[in-house]
Structures are given as structure tokens and as C-alpha cells.
């Protein structure tokens, strides 16, 4: 059984590396001048590697399922990894509809960032508490991830649209917002980089702190800049926190989470600044030449199309299957739990997107911004709601 788990992790790693190489090949398609997308060799290699990587990830998924005895979508690591996988699948689907390599060049990096991010969470196989012991859980979670993966493609093409469309010769509100979007993606990279760095160093600092008359301990894997409220450092050679998490950040591990966020911002900002120093221009401006040969119109259509394909899947998984599971597990199919409400918010958002598309003025750049906004909501639901507004869906 240990071997199976070993195989599983290796396969995930293989998939991860293959996606990176595939991205490079999709990047190379930009240089194939004149040949048209279909005949480009690098594009073919790119999609082949993506498919092999996807297969490897399926092997990861199945072996981990066998090893743990339940579908691996039950904690933060497993779910985010699966979300990355769903994004790759969504990309594959849309690639075969439109045969556009440029989607790969943008979609795969986002999936890679998501998988890297996922891997920073505890990777042990965790047992299922009774409320999670349901087939409907698997059905619900996998469908949601698939729907969100499809919707994420609209973010990718929307982002590509903006990078191409926005005039980089002058600084404007639009260039600033675009930089903010790119910077946010880099924050995730920052989180992964800093987590890997300190986990190689085996860094640990343990605190004891009170929550509601109980004393809890929290083990930091990053040096404590923000300590727990009224916490006491137990590890002798660790750095003492510069400040404590404010008291209103209530609950277990609040200080640790705040600390992780601070570190992600610090590392992400450093990476961003380094990139700016090296490139000597805005990231948006640096990426713009990649899209020289893409057509805005087609990018806009793919943005809309992936929402059109993703919306029914998301509705089915995020609302209907979720409701069925909630009915069986908690005796009510809808309970206004934060996670449920944010699924509803996501759904309303994309419904609004689809209705806005009915009028002419909302095609093109406005749609692209909306697609970015939708993805922000999805990420907020996946990350912030789990970590901050913890509800019944107690992942991680």
C-alpha cells in the first residue's frame, strides 16, 4: 500500500513536469510563422505532452483512491489538485474545438500554479468524518471542479484578450488593473516558493494559544511574523513574532493562516519586482508580443463559449448535486452556509455574465474583465471561504 501511494505521488510529479514542458512547446508555436495552427509541429508536441501529463494525473488519482479507500477530493490538497486537473481537461476539450495553441500557453501555467499551490497543503491521506462519507460527495466535488475548470478557461482567454487589447504604450487604469491580476497570480507562486524553501529547511515553530477557554497548539512551518493571539512560543530557537494576530481573527490556526498570507505577499512581491527589474516593462507589456497573431474576436468567442459550456456543469455540480448531498447528510438541501452562499454568488455572477452578453455593448473587453472577475470569485470560494469563513465544509 505504501508503494501505491509512492507511485501516486510520482505520477502527480510527472504530470506537473510534463505540463511545464508542454507549456514551453505551446510557447514555441508563436514562432512558427505562416504555417497556420493546425500544422504546427510544436503545437502537436504540446498537446501530446499535455495528454500524457493528464493521463499521469489520472493514474495519480486512481492509485490514491485505491490507497485511501475514498475518492481523493476530501482535503485541500486533494481538491485543489483535482481542480488543476479539471482545468487541464477543460483546456483539452476547448483545444480540440478550436485548435488554438495560445490557450495552452495561458491555461497550463494557471493549472501548474494551482497544482503547485495545492501541494503545499498537508498531503497525508486523511480519514473521512461521517458527514463526508457519501458517494454524493464525490459526485458533487468532481462535477464542481470540472465546471470551475471550464469557467477557468474563460478567465484564461479573457486574460489573453486583455493582454493583447490593452494599450501598453501609456499607463492607464486598465494597465494597472491588468498588472494587479498578474500580480495576484504571482502571489500564488510566492506562496509555493516560500513554502518549499522552508519545508526543505524543515522549519517548525510551535505555539500554544487560547481559543474560547481551550488551549490549542499551532505548528508554524514558516517563521512567525504574526503569532497567534495571546500565543506562547514553545519552540526554543524560533524567531519571536513581530506582532500577534488581532483578536477578531477568531478560531484555530488564525495566526498561522495570517502568517502564511503575509509571507505569500512578501515573496510574491519580491518575485514581481524582480520580474519588473529584469523585463524593464509591465508584465502585461512583456506578455503582449506572445499574442501578436491571435485574433481578438476568437478569444472573445472562446471566453463566452467556455462559460456557456461550464455554466450547466457548474450548476449541476455546485448547486444540484451539492443540494442532494446536503439533504442526505444534514437533512436540509440548502442551509445558507458560507460555502453554499458563495456557490450561489458564483452562479449569479455567471448568470449575469450570460445575460449581459445578450446586449451588444458587453462583448469584447468588458466580457474579458467579467471573466477575470468570475475567476476571482471562484478562487475566493476555494481558498478564502475554506480558510477564513470556515463553514461546514471543513477542508484542511
Amino acid at each position, binding site marked *: 500500500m505504501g508503494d501505491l501511494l509512492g507511485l501516486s505521488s510520482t505520477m502527480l510529479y510527472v504530470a506537473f513536469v510534463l505540463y511545464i514542458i508542454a507549456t514551453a512547446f505551446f510557447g514555441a508555436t508563436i514562432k512558427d510563422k505562416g504555417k497556420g495552427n493546425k500544422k504546427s509541429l510544436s503545437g502537436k508536441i504540446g498537446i501530446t505532452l499535455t495528454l500524457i501529463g493528464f493521463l499521469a494525473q489520472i493514474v495519480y488519482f486512481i492509485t490514491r483512491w485505491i490507497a485511501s479507500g475514498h475518492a481523493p477530493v476530501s482535503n485541500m490538497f486533494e481538491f485543489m489538485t483535482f481542480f488543476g486537473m479539471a482545468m487541464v481537461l477543460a483546456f483539452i476539450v476547448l483545444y480540440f474545438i478550436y485548435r488554438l495553441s495560445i490557450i495552452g500557453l495561458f491555461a497550463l501555467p494557471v493549472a501548474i500554479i494551482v497544482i503547485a499551490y495545492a501541494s503545499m497543503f498537508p498531503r497525508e491521506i486523511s480519514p473521512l468524518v*461521517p458527514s463526508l*462519507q457519501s458517494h454524493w460527495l464525490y459526485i458533487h466535488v468532481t462535477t464542481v471542479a470540472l465546471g470551475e475548470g471550464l469557467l477557468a478557461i474563460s478567465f484564461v482567454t479573457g486574460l489573453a484578450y486583455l493582454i493583447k487589447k490593452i494599450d501598453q504604450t501609456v499607463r492607464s487604469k486598465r494597465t494597472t488593473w491588468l498588472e494587479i491580476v498578474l500580480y495576484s497570480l504571482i502571489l500564488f507562486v510566492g506562496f509555493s516558493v516560500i513554502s518549499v524553501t522552508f519545508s526543505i529547511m524543515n522549519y517548525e515553530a510551535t505555539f500554544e494559544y487560547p481559543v474560547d477557554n481551550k488551549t490549542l497548539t499551532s505548528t508554524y512551518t514558516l517563521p512567525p511574523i504574526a503569532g497567534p493571539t495571546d500565543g506562547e512560543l514553545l519552540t526554543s530557537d524560533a524567531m519571536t513574532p513581530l506582532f500577534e494576530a488581532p483578536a477578531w481573527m477568531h478560531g484555530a490556526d488564525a495566526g498561522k493562516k495570517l502568517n502564511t498570507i503575509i509571507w505569500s505577499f512578501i515573496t510574491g512581491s519580491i518575485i514581481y519586482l524582480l520580474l519588473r527589474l529584469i523585463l524593464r516593462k509591465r508584465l502585461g507589456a512583456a506578455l503582449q508580443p506572445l499574442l501578436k497573431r491571435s485574433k481578438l474576436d476568437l478569444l472573445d468567442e472562446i471566453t463566452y*463559449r467556455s462559460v456557456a459550456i461550464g*455554466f*450547466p456543469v457548474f450548476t449541476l455540480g455546485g448547486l444540484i448535486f451539492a443540494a442532494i448531498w446536503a439533504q442526505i*447528510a444534514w437533512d436540509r*438541501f440548502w442551509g445558507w452556509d458560507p460555502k453554499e452562499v458563495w456557490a450561489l454568488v458564483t452562479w449569479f*455572477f455567471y448568470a449575469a455574465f450570460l445575460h*449581459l452578453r445578450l446586449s451588444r455593448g458587453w462583448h469584447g473587453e468588458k466580457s474579458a474583465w467579467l471573466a477575470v472577475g468570475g475567476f476571482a470569485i471562484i478562487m475566493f470560494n476555494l481558498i478564502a471561504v475554506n480558510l477564513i469563513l470556515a463553514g461546514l465544509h471543513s477542508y484542511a
Partner: protein
Amino acid sequence: MKKIKCECGHVNPEGTVLCEACGKPIEGNQHIDGNDKKKLLNMRYDGSARRSQTYNKSIIDKTWNFFSSVKVGVWLIVITLIASAVGTIFPQQQYIPSDAISRDPAIFYEDRYGILGKIYYQLGFHDLFGSWWYMLLVAMIGVSLVICSIDRFVPLYKALKIQKAKRHETFLNRQRLFSETEQVSPEDIEKVKNRLKKQRYNVRDEDGYILAEKGRFSRWGPYVNHIGLIIILLAALLRFTPILFMDEYVWVREGEQIVIPGTHGEYYIENKKFTLETYDADDEKFKAAIEKQGGMIPSNFQTDAIIYKDNNADVPGAEPDLEKIIESDIRMNQPLKFDGYTLYQAGYQENEFTSMSFIIHETDDADEQKLDEFSISLTEPKAEYELENGFRVKVEEYFPDYVFQDGEPASQTNYPRNPAFVLLIYPPESDTPEVSFIGIGKNIDATGENKYKVSIQDFSMHNVSGLTVKRDYTLPFFIFGAAIFMIGVIQGMYWQHRRIWVNPKGDGLLVAAHTNKNWFGVKKDIEKAIEGTNINMVVDQQELEE
């Protein structure tokens, strides 16, 4: 009503933008769909006459127009979206944690979240989703859905039914995809026709004017999904009726048999045993995770229950005549169903006290020699106990769940989780009692002069199961609504309505196409159809516009 006759002979209803038959723009109405400012025609509802765009005089017109506007609909959705997000900033009332200082919202929000919490509470956001204005928003979305669907469905349906294959030239050349070819042979036209048929287009040839159409049914998708949404909203209304929806909660002790609330005394439940199982901390697979989470991860909550039906339930005053109908376990994720009712494992309380036994001995007796003994059932304590050796014990006060609060003894709940008593002990043949206060780990002699002392000898405990009792006849409506909704979105999203017009003009040909989504797909269809002919590929006029 002012009808409009088009030059093709078709009579259109007032407010028509594009002739229903030939598509010729109708003069004077072009501002309605914004065609007057653009080269391309707005094809959204095929230029059909919608009530909302035609009348705007009476209050009814104005209300109708308000709710049928997609702009208003989007605003309603956006406002509801923002309101929903606000409802997650702090936990809603029902999610106030049980370990909070107080579950009273008036205290909780301010205590935990300070001034912001207080404002949140005072604005009523602690029960946002139950507030009248949130329900009003949802209701308005519902009204808007109905009105806007009716406003568009009927005219669109008629326009698509009446449409002719022969189209006016201005209609064709103002489509997004259009081409004109000077000279085309009849064979080429025949080729195109056959190829379109092969691509599963429904091809109509009216005197050489060709309309190839596919996926029209997908146009009804939005209307179908809106109907699904309406059914769901109506189902939510049905929940307010007690006949269709009942929701109760019951605590049952191990060994206890009680009537199930909400069943009008018809059903009884007996709790044979409650089990809480946890994962084995030495399990190789889960060891690491269990250790990290500090051990004790529950694996199962289960009540072994027997359900009885009282055959005398409708005879007033009669003794219950219980007949066992089901014996089964109830677990989380595996509720028990019977006769329309469902029981869910929803909570538990471990280690409540069932009974306690006491002895009485002399205060100074180091050996605590028993003079008399008694035992109190904590679920049904008697007021007074006459003991064998002549002592009498009166239960002066009973705190099932003792706490010392605000300088006074009190009971937190009515459940015997931490029982304590004030006992009056009457020695044999005496009418002057001694007062003892006794509980777990507490034995207080208030006066310090008691001659006799009571000590706890033994106790027994039980677990309690918390079960939700539900009867919900509204569920099928929700399921039905959700199914209709899914059919509608899939119908509208995974198919597209594509139309290709191939109309002769002199010796040449005009080709134009329209689709409600997936332009890439139609272009490919046309490419395939005209391959090898000398017909010009359509040009995307929208791209040129940019």
C-alpha cells in the same frame, strides 16, 4: 392595433423591427433594436415585435417594461449577489457556534466582532437570508423572469415560424456573415444544398431561395430553464405550509421510548443504543493525518432504533397500542425513512447520568459506615424518598446541568450532564432536616453542623441521540424544477440555432448566416459546404467593424 404591411406582402404586428417573413428592416422602427446606428442588424429576437418595446403608456405598460428589461434583470441578480456575499461576512444566526459566550445574537455579534458585529446585527444581517427584503429581491427576480420570458417568447416563436427562405437583400447584407458572388452555376448550388443536408441542416428550397437551418429548438432553452427556476421558487413558497413541510428535532435517551414529535402521536421511537466510533489511531493509512489533527477523528455516528406505530392514535384517550414497524440503524448520510417521514442522525450527547446512588453516614465516621442508602433517577427524580432504615430524603432543589453563575447555583440545560442536588435529610423520627449540597466532586455542608453526610456511591450513564424529524412533500417540486432547469440550460447552451441563407441575385448568389452562439462553428460549416465551388466565403463583417 396598427399592422404594418411589408413590400413582400406579409402583414406584421405593430412594433416589428424586421419583417417576419422576408426580414426587410421596417422603416421607423429601427431605433428599437439600435439598428439605426449600426451597419449590422440586431438579430436577438429576429426583430420581432415585443410588447415591452411597443407600448409605454399605462402603469401596466410601464411595470411590464420594467420587469421585462434584461438590464433590470441583471441589476436584480447583481444586487442579490452582493447581498448574499454580505451575508457571509459573519456567521448567520443559525451558525453561531455552540461554544460562543452566548447564542443570543444581541450579545454574540458585539462580543466577538466588536462594533462591526454590532452594526451587522443591528442592520439585521444576522438573519439576512430570512429578511423580507432579501425575499423581495428573489421574488422580483421571479417576476422579472416570467414577464421577460412571455414578452419575448411569443413573438420570437411566431417570427421563426413565419420566416421565409427568401430574404430581402438589406437583410442579408446586414448580417454578420455575408458574401456576394457574381456568377454561380446551378450545379454548385445543388452541391452546397446537399452538403448542408449532410451536415444535418434542415434545408428549405422555395423557388431557388434556400434557407438551411439547424438547432432551432435550442432557442427555447432559456425559456425552459426560466420555467424551471419559477418552479423552484414556487416550491420554496410551498415550504411555508405545515402540511407539506414539517421539521422537528428530538432528543432520545438510550433505552427510552418516546413519541416522535410532528407525527401527531402516531409514531414512537425507541433508542436501543447510540454509538460513536472513531478511527483507529494506529491505522497505518491514516496515522499521520490523525496525529496531525490531534487524534480522535469520528468515523461513525449511529443510533440503533426501533420505530413503532400506535394503532390507537386516532382514538382519543386510548392507551397506545404499539406495533413495531421497523428496526434499523440511523447514521449520518444514511437516514431512516418510513411512511413519508425521515429521521436523520443530527446530534448526540455522550455520558448523561441515568441514575445516582447515595449512602448516608455519620459525618465524623472515617470509615463511612452505611446507615442508609437511596438512589435517584435523574430523568425522573422523585420529590421525596422514604428509606429502609428510617431516614427520609427530600429533594429540595435539582440542577441537572449544574453551573455556578452570577454567584448562584443554576442549571445550564435541562439535561443531566452534571447533576447536583440540594437535599434535606430527615434523620429517623425527626422533623428537623439537615441541608446538604451534593454533586459530582462537590459535597457541601452549608451550616458546618451536619451530623449526617451523604456520599455518592455509584452512578450509571447513557448516551442521547439527537434526531431531526422531517416530512417534506415539497422535495419532488424542487427536483422537478431543477430537472427542467438543467434540461433548459443544456438545450440552450450545448446546441445552437444556426441559419444559412443562400439567395440568388441575378446570375449570382448572396450567402448570409446567423447563429445565436458559436460563430466559429457556422463558419466551418459554410467552409465545408462551399468547398470546391466558386462561391465566395462569407466575410465576418463584425471583425471588419472593429
